[in-house]
């Protein structure tokens, strides 16, 4: 399916060039872009950009996973935490990660901390909300069954509710990584001196369209792989979830 899609896109692309004869700087030929992609993938400078972007994403993302899970579980299971934090989190979620980019630039300058803050912020909210929703939405029969067997608060939370919420939690982790990646790209477009996002912006300023498109393809592939890896985890976890075993 993917192969057919790529082939169709390349075909349509080549067709458009034959029909419209655009400038190579506006729409280069697929072969030119492919050649540029190969060149880039064998250049260490490009790998440095990729590594930097990935580092920024994963550093913030892992922090976001830890904090998001903790807060999500806390809100779902501890009443005090829920009362204290929910209104603030609901309000803050309308300050989208992108809106934090300018102030992060002022506070952190061009340093890595600024980018990691943005990726953390993006992941944290998505993971916290999804985890909370997953924990809150549970098959009551399972919970009641566990309680008749004498499970108390902590045991209930960790042995029954969280495992049962795994699929929802994993979905949250997947969406969080996706938003982290997008937010990082945006931050690199606005305020960076290196990285994938910065690379494509710089190339577009130099009218190096083949490089821009090659960079976009790399970005797309990375995003696709990140999403795909989680989908694999989701399907594996889905088979082993508690309710999956019970039904």
């Amino acid at each position, binding site marked *: 399916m993917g192969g057919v*899609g790529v082939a169709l896109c390349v075909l349509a692309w080549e067709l458009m060039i034959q029909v419209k004869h655009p400038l190579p700087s506006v729409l280069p030929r697929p072969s030119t872009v492919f050649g540029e992609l190969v060149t880039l993938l064998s250049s260490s400078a490009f790998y440095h950009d990729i590594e930097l972007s990935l580092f920024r994403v994963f550093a913030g993302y892992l922090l976001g996973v830890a904090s998001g899970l903790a807060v999500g579980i806390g809100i779902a*299971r501890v009443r005090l935490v829920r009362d204290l934090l929910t209104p*603030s989190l609901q309000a803050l979620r309308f300050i989208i990660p992108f809106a*934090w980019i*300018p102030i992060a630039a002022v506070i952190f300058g061009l340093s890595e901390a600024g980018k990691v803050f943005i990726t953390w912020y993006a992941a944290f909210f998505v993971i916290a909300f999804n985890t909370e*929703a997953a924990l*809150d939405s549970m098959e009551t029969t399972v919970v009641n069954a566990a*309680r008749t067997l004498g499970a108390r608060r902590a045991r209930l939370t960790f042995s029954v509710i969280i495992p049962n919420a795994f699929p929802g939690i994993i979905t949250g982790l997947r969406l969080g990584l996706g938003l982290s990646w997008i937010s990082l790209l945006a931050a690199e477009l606005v305020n960076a001196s290196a990285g994938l996002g910065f690379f494509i912006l710089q190339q577009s300023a130099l009218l190096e369209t083949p490089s821009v498109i090659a960079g976009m393809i790399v970005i797309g592939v990375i995003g696709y792989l990140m999403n795909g890896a989680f989908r694999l985890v989701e399907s594996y976890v889905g088979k082993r979830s508690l309710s999956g075993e019970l039904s």
Partner: protein
Amino acid sequence: MTAEQPTPIAGGRSRRGGARGRVQDGGADDGRGRIWLGLVVPVTFVIVWQVASTFSGPLREVTSSPWAALRVLGDDARSGVLVSDLKTSLAEAIGGWLLACLIASPLGVVMARSRTLSQLLLPAIEVVRPISPVAWIPLTILWLGVGYEEKLVVIFIICFFIVFVNVYDGARLIDPLLVKAARTLTASRLRIAIHVLMPAATRGILVGAQYALTGAWGGMVVTELVGASSGIGYRMRFYGSALRPDGVVAGMVVVAIVGWLLDRIAKLLFERFLSKYR
């Protein structure tokens, strides 16, 4: 292909059957609502921030203070800058959103019902979709320069995929039993189309449009941050470059409030229509 969105804080519907609901173990939600507790965190934060920035020069330079941000907001509102920025930003966001809805909705419905068309176009759409819309910005700037059209295109791309996915799924996943039931009542294909397909498709359109509006507003922020000459996002970058965090914070507040308003309006409008089609 499923419509992916972060789930809101609410009880969910189980797809595996079985009752689902808030875990009733006297846990985190008693329903008595100690609402005032929710204000503790934000009020404390604002107070601490204001006091700290009053006494600390370095902090003030970097984050300014709540009061300073409010002052900038007032100044910009009075001078008309805020209104003109809002007009630009809303024009970009809503323009791209509308265009996407108008194009993605019929496309989604037609593709959902036509196997040949979907086999032809779907692979191409699925290949382009993983390329985050943000990554399209440099190319779009290269093509169209920095301006209204460029922002419209980027926001269109963001909204298109959101609406398309929701419409396509909605129109595709129609319970075949419903169609069979209609057929046993000797309904013609046209009547089936009207009474079974359209409600399902409309549901998809409404849900997709709702999510897309939020995406459009966020897209506006990004595109304006990268390059613009007016608008809320531009204003934030402008103040940021001038090292005026008070202006940046003011901009963040506006982004949040308008984003919330759009979300509210979309919910109100669409949920009213949605209830007719359940």
